[in-house]
């Protein structure tokens, strides 16, 4: 499988990365080089093989359903580029 210029633009939008028109071609070449490299996985017979979900045999631990954290809104917004009254500020989303 290989990607064309339109696919590069679409992946950029999905990944929320702006791609200048003059970079589309170089991204296309690089992505196709990587996709070409991973193509060799098609040689492997994976019939009946379970996909890995956990590299160490373990089931996810559970914990008691109680509040263990919180009341630190100031710390949470401390690194925000823009905040007001402990809210993150973003450009207007709804008209």
């Amino acid at each position, binding site marked *: 499988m290989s990607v064309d210029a339109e696919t590069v633009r679409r992946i950029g939008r999905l990944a929320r990365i702006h791609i200048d028109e003059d970079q589309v071609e170089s991204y296309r070449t690089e992505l196709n080089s990587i996709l070409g490299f991973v193509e*060799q996985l098609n040689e492997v017979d994976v019939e009946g093989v379970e996909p890995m979900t956990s590299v160490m045999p373990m089931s996810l631990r559970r914990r008691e359903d109680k509040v263990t954290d919180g009341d630190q809104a100031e710390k949470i917004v401390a690194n925000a580029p823009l905040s007001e009254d402990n809210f993150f500020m973003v450009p207007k989303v709804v008209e």
Partner: protein
Amino acid sequence: MSDLTRLSLAALRDGLKAKEFTSVEATDAYLSAIEAANPKLNPYVAVTSDQARDMARASDEKLQKGKGGPLEGVPLGIKDLFATKGAHTQAASHILDHFLPEYESTITQQLWNHGAVMLGKLNMDEFAMGSSNETSYYGPVVNPWRAENSNKDLVPGGSSGGSAAATSAWLCAAATATDTGGSIRQPAAFTGTVGIKPTYGRCSRWGVVAFASSLDQAGPIARTVEDAAIMLQSMSGFDPKDSTSVDLAVPDFAAAVERGVKGVTIGVPKEYRMDGMPAEIEKLWTQGLEWLKAEGATVRDISLPHTKYALPAYYIVAPAEASSNLARYDGVKYGLRKTGKDITDMYEQTRAAGFGREVKRRVMIGTYVLSAGYYDAYYVRAQKVRTLIKRDFEQAFNDGIDAILTPATPSAAFGIADQDMAADPIKMYLNDVFTVTVNMAGLPGIAVPAGKDTNGLPLGLQLIGKPFDEETLFAAGRVIEKANGGGFEPKVWW
């Protein structure tokens, strides 16, 4: 006092305990060495001098009273990927500009609880994506090693290039590092240092900036096998805050170092004998096996048939997880923000400006392989191949193999701005061909200096162990270290 920087971590620790010198003296020696070297080698992205001296003074008070933890007063470098409260933590990325964590990573907290002193934050490939430390927003790190009769700048490897260079050049007693596909072991091999990636789940990932969560593991880079064991001891242990942390007792790693390899069976995987492997790498590998045999190990040929598929599977799994993990950098919660005509444009402009080319490339590959219609063909298939890679190792261990010996890298350190690597991302990715299998299977792996190439540059061997059997790696690594003849110290030119 500058000779304090030349001591091993173990000797420094013992000297501090015996009050032969103080932590403030050791810390000042390191800070002076960093000040002199950093403009040329660039391993530190931030030097926390005031904090280091405060920590050293506190350690000296304890040491004076005959108290203190196992690393009391020992100055360390910390990879920029570890969250350190109130100190530079930017994963060497532009997108995390000015980010100062309100919290401390579990691993660094354990190190401070054990008495260690933080000298500063170490350079790395951006978000740990790279094998040469050239993708850092803070510029490349220069390897303290140079080829004989050459003044050409070489890479220290990556992504933990700052950790490896700083350790090798006596700019810290040891360093924390992380390894997703070889990022501890490859730079250790390129700088003549020792690096161990422990078993997945041994060290907490809490507070370590995530790249590919199912592969990421932290570990140390140190100047000796014993130092690496001491460091790993303090970095390991169960952490309820990391859901993949394993609740297992941590053995006394340092006690295993001199255990020897009598009765140990070492596997030699034929699939690692790649076409076009340089003769000097081949020779080094054979030499390593001879050293282990001489100390009583048995050597046996084994087969790990899915080896060649590890790297392509990695370049699906790792970017897929990265594209998800890096979604959080959106210009809202922390770091860089670029203005846009609406919120989507703000996201897109911020991420375009904040991420470097390699990171963007991997996020895009990850986005593509996870997108509708391609998920099964790429991601699910790669995870199935991963099951087969792990099964190969299990088979070998079930057949009586205790550890596996391989080369650590396909070559010695290469030049900064290497044209071949720049032109073809796959060439750079091939650096991890011997190390990436270990991450895919979650196993422990150690790189130990073993020899030099024809230009006098260090080369490493890798030992791969059973899950949670880092002890055998320290024991076998020490045998190689004792046999290698020494001389893994760079000539000071900086």
